[in-house]
């Protein structure tokens, strides 16, 4: 399998779904709308041209400055026969964190989705048991979100500027505090 044949196979089934495939460090990365996730993954797993039988990894990412695309869920799929890896990304905003579960397609997704819920609060709809897995049940927030800095909030020497992030994707410490305040 190569990039062209895979993209053609997807195009024949889902016309116009893939607009700008990227390939950072040699891994094909596709950004897809949330409502197409389940049909596409089912196609990728069951279609003999695609044959992605293995879910390698699933995790969340938080981009606080992107309003509509604040949270990403990243999937790594692997076609073991052709040894071809594929990365899928879906984005959701803070108002609606619903992403359909993959746990009926890949059993491996079950705990990885619970972990992503625990860390970022992504609501995997249809999940059989969406509860926290690493943190304690009565925790009231999702600690991997960027608005929760690791350090004591009164410290001024651990500002994002000290990590080389002026004008970069990450938000500054003050913005962090504002977001945290808005969310109560």
């Amino acid at each position, binding site marked *: 399998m190569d990039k062209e044949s895979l993209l053609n196979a997807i195009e024949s089934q889902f016309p116009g779904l893939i607009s700008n495939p990227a390939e950072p460090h040699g891994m094909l990365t596709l950004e897809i709308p949330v409502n197409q996730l389940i049909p596409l993954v089912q196609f990728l797993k069951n279609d003999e041209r695609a044959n992605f039988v293995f879910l390698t990894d699933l*995790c969340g990412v938080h981009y606080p400055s992107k309003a509509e695309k604040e949270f990403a869920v990243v999937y790594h799929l692997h076609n073991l026969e052709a040894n071809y890896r594929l990365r899928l990304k879906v984005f959701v905003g803070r108002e609606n964190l619903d992403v359909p579960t993959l746990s009926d397609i890949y059993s491996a997704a079950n705990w990885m989705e619970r972990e992503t819920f625990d860390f970022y609060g992504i609501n995997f709809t249809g999940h059989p048991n969406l509860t926290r897995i690493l943190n304690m049940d009565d925790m009231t927030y999702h600690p991997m979100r960027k608005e929760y800095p690791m350090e004591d909030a009164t410290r001024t020497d651990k500002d994002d500027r000290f990590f*080389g992030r002026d004008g970069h994707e990450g938000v500054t410490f003050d913005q962090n505090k504002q977001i945290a305040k808005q969310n109560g």
Partner: protein
Amino acid sequence: MNTTPQIFANDSIDGELATLNLGPTHPATHGIFQNVLKMDGERIISAEQTVGYIHRAFEKIAERRPYNQITPLTDRLNYCSSPINNLGWDMTVEKLIGIEVPKRVDYMRVIIMELARISDHLVCNSVIGVDTGALTGFTYMFQERELIYDIFEGVCGARLTTNIGRIGGFERDFSADVFKRIQTFLKEFPKRFNEFGNLLSRNRIFMDRVIGAGPISGDRALNYGFTGPNLRAAGVDYDVRVMNPYSSYQDFDFLVPVGEGGDTFDRFMVRQEEINQSLSIIRQALDKMPAGDYHADVPEFYLPPKKDVYQSMEALIYHFKIIMGEMKIPEGEVYFSVEGGNGELGYYLISDGGRTPYRLHFRRPCFIYYQAYPEMIKGSLLSDAILTMSSMNVIAGELDA
């Protein structure tokens, strides 16, 4: 008509069910995690797991640490084979930055990683012995593991949480003493290891205990995201070293052993044979060890020799910048995986050009395959469940992120 009441109908005592807490602290769980079992006599009807007893927030901490300070965090994932975690992380960063390391570094890394694999498999297999009641092999194999730790100590100064290697290579070359220790190990270990194998692998009592205990089919194992020896025991020959060779694994000639039934015996035998293959890889690496430097020529990322720091301006500047975490890291996202002791250990790294990762996610094989445990032990006896857990080699540190 038989009027005497049947006490043990279908193995259950009066149809009465019991709830049994296995863990969080129990010698047979080999770590701090809990299984709440619903038992019908000795038979398990269902199991409910928890894993979060040692959450240490690596991924959150990693977002505030310069790249070279993340290596010690990876030590604590699978602490039975920390060097694989360390070197996998170094190679991930090298892939992001685009560093080519000299061939000698690749071979040195292969030796260290295969030694770590041997020590990891030794712990698992000798503990399977312990859980079947054979303590002797364990006591002998732990002495062998100490010899491997002696080698690590000679390379980096630490034994368990090694923090071995640096971005771009090793902090120092292997000394003559280290080479001597590796040679001695290669000469003497196989004898004692075969003795251990002979005690168990064709032992009738052991075989009766482990054959058919906690089986899983290849299909289910793939669906559950199994990797490593556990997947290979189920008959799927997926090994990252062969499929996506890193650190020059394509230069070595080795076999990928596979099992058939995916039961405890197959997992035991796959690990036994992998130890033999690892020994062969180490021999090949020693024979073919290329001359050259023990680190890449990347002064922006690799610390200069201390004596230069006092005499050369460039060395002083680089030293300061590396220590203060001011390395220039390009933007990008990269997924890199190595064959850890328990399977595909993956690193998903997103850099936004800052001095710390924007996001770092570890794919821990244990965390992913341990969720299959209730399915594997359903309907089996409690004693088989204990064996199944030790043969899956669930390491508590690797359940965490």
